[in-house]
């Protein structure tokens, strides 16, 4: 027992380290600004630059700067401003952190959607491992019947994790997912992870198609899909906001996955999304910070902000 908990602690530690190194560039740019200096217009300009360069976007940058200006007018020092920024960010991002509860539904169906190349199939591979580690049985459904070899790619992940994959050559994505859910029910499997083909929000017929796919899933299992997550590439700029809106309109999203955060200066887009969706917060379910199979983990606002600022 003791050994297990120390193992988990180690895993947590390396996760935090990796998140920190993933956000390294953004952090050094932001946190270095505040040390040993007076509060003057130049400081604010540098903060603005750092935020914009991290993909925070014009709107979120304006919002954060306004909040900091207010603190400064109350006589805050540069050091206090940094603490203030940290607090504001945590407050902004806290609604994105929500506990995932998949209990009581069997099979529970999680559907993934996103633009081409955002990392849907890879995320499914990593999620399979994550949920297996939690003691759930998992089935992968190859709903991307469009892209060449998407099925084979998912099959490789299935092999890696030793989980079943339901696929058809060609055919209709709805039919594949329907079959997968029926198979999961008859095999008594806890969780179905449903892959879908990448699509751009401008391809209206494909956005309609994914709505149909969702309705087919509902026919296969009442109440399903229980979760619909949009997979976002952290390299994406302000277009991420449009993706969130378009896929939410088409599907009614219940969460987000942010992949490839291990590049260089990123993470600001999370602030932009949080601000744009402050009325209807969309939980950030998982964040990916590396290519390893265990590098996709639940989002924690505190850890994220300290990785950004400390």
């Amino acid at each position, binding site marked *: 027992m003791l050994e297990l908990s120390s193992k988990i602690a180690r895993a947590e530690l390396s996760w935090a380290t990796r998140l920190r190194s993933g956000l390294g560039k953004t952090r050094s740019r932001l946190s270095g600004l505040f040390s040993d200096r007076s509060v003057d217009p130049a400081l604010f300009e540098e903060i603005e630059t750092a935020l*914009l360069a*991290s993909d925070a976007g014009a709107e979120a940058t304006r919002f954060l700067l306004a909040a900091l200006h207010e603190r400064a007018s109350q006589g805050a020092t540069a050091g206090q401003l940094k603490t203030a920024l940290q607090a504001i960010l945590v407050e902004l991002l806290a609604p994105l952190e929500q506990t995932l509860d998949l209990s009581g539904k069997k099979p529970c169906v999680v559907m993934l959607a996103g*633009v081409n190349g955002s990392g849907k199939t890879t995320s499914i591979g990593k999620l399979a491992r994550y949920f297996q580690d939690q003691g759930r049985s998992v089935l992968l459904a190859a709903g991307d019947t469009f892209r060449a*070899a998407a099925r084979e790619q998912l099959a490789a992940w299935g092999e890696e994790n030793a989980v079943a994959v339901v696929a058809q050559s060609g055919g209709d994505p709805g039919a594949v997912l329907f079959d997968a859910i029926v198979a999961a029910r008859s095999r008594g499997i806890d969780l179905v992870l449903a892959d879908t083909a990448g699509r751009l929000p*401008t391809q209206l*017929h494909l956005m309609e198609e994914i709505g149909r796919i969702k309705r087919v899933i509902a026919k296969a299992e009442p109440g399903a899909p229980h979760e619909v997550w949009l997979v976002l590439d952290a390299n994406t*700029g302000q277009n991420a906001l449009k993706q969130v809106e378009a896929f939410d309109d088409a599907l009614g999203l219940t969460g987000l996955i942010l992949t490839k955060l291990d590049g260089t200066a990123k993470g600001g887009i999370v602030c932009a999304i949080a601000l744009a969706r402050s009325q209807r917060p969309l939980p950030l379910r998982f964040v990916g910070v590396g290519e390893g199979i265990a590098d996709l983990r639940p989002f924690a606002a505190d850890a994220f902000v300290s990785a950004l600022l400390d």
Partner: protein
Amino acid sequence: MLENLSERLSRIAKTIRGEARLTEANIQEALREVRMALLEADVALPVVKAFIERVREAALGAEVVGSLTPGQALVGVVHRELTALMGGEDAALDLAVTPPAVVLLAGLQGSGKTTTAAKLAKMLAAERQKKPLLVSCDVYRPAAIEQLRTLAGQIGVDFFPSAIGQKPMAIALAALDHAKKHYHDVLLVDTAGRLAIDATMMQEIAGLHAALKPVETLFIVDSMQGQDSVKVAKAFGDALPLTGIVLTKLDGDARGGAALSVRQVTGKPIKFAGVSEKPDGLELFHPERMASRILGMGDVLSLVEEARKTVDLDEAKKFAEKLKKGKGFNLEDFKQQIGQMRKMGGISSMIDKLPAQFAQAAQSSQMDEKQLRRVEGIIDSMTPAERMRPEILKASRKRRIAAGAGVPVQEVNRLLNQFEQMQEMMKRIQKGGLAKMMRGMKGFMPGTR
């Protein structure tokens, strides 16, 4: 976001319009707007800063004199500078070496390298009569090799098999050898996606480059990429002597931010743009048009080109003959037009390419895909005689058609009205020709002279 930028710029143009000339003071406000708009379109900050300086200098210079309004002048300056920044000239692939000419593709994960490799092969085979060979050196992503093999089969191009256990270098050299022995003109080498900060992987691709000595080394960039584009491009440019850039997924909501940044940082031309998921969805990149598109002047030229490619030439010829003979335009033709419109990627992709003000009008008139299908349904419910001579349609015929198509009679009437307008337009085209109509459209666009 690009729409956003153009709207913003036209708003700026309006606010400045009241003043006699551009001054340091009134341009300040407008430039701040341009700056924010560019940032929202994901142009990287350092690039934005340099760009604003260029525009400021150009706007305050002599070029303002002689323009109609200061607002138009500023939009004109922004457009000119944008075009200059993105290249100023079209650039095709340079394959003038002893065959096989090697083309190496590099980029981040998910940027679209494999799809682009297949599209390039198809383009070289179809448009330049080359014999290409495709090979994948991606031994990391599961089924990446399988993906390229499938695509090669779909487009009917030779594929050099590789496997996950092999070394990328060994694969590349074997493929090069094969290409030489089998007289392939071009060897297209797909590589694994890699992060710019991954030193081992960057060394790997530098090694591939040294061994293959490619005539073209293309950097594949997702057009949706954010601020990081500038650093990623720099890292790839430092590791590899790039010769060009391919901008992918431009059929998304068409932001140009990454295009500007990457072009600026690498100094290499953007050679191609990926514009659909299909194997022929690759176009030559035209900086001039991209700049126009950013400014909301629309992409009318590439729309025309696309129409030329997709529309059935025979059908179009027959149609033109008919018009010439003065037989008029009937509902059967109207239906064919709708079918061809769908072939061109549907209305939405056409709207994207129209100038902002037309796009808005087109969207508000609610001509969506669904409605197209209904229109087709209504025409299908008519007899051949009715289609040829719509004027015979009276109340009882209309009722029958409405019942057949499952729509209210009003919708049949609306279709007939639309058709009449279309007939009017066709008459005008007959008189003046398409070119004249295009010129007419050009007058509506801001900044063109």
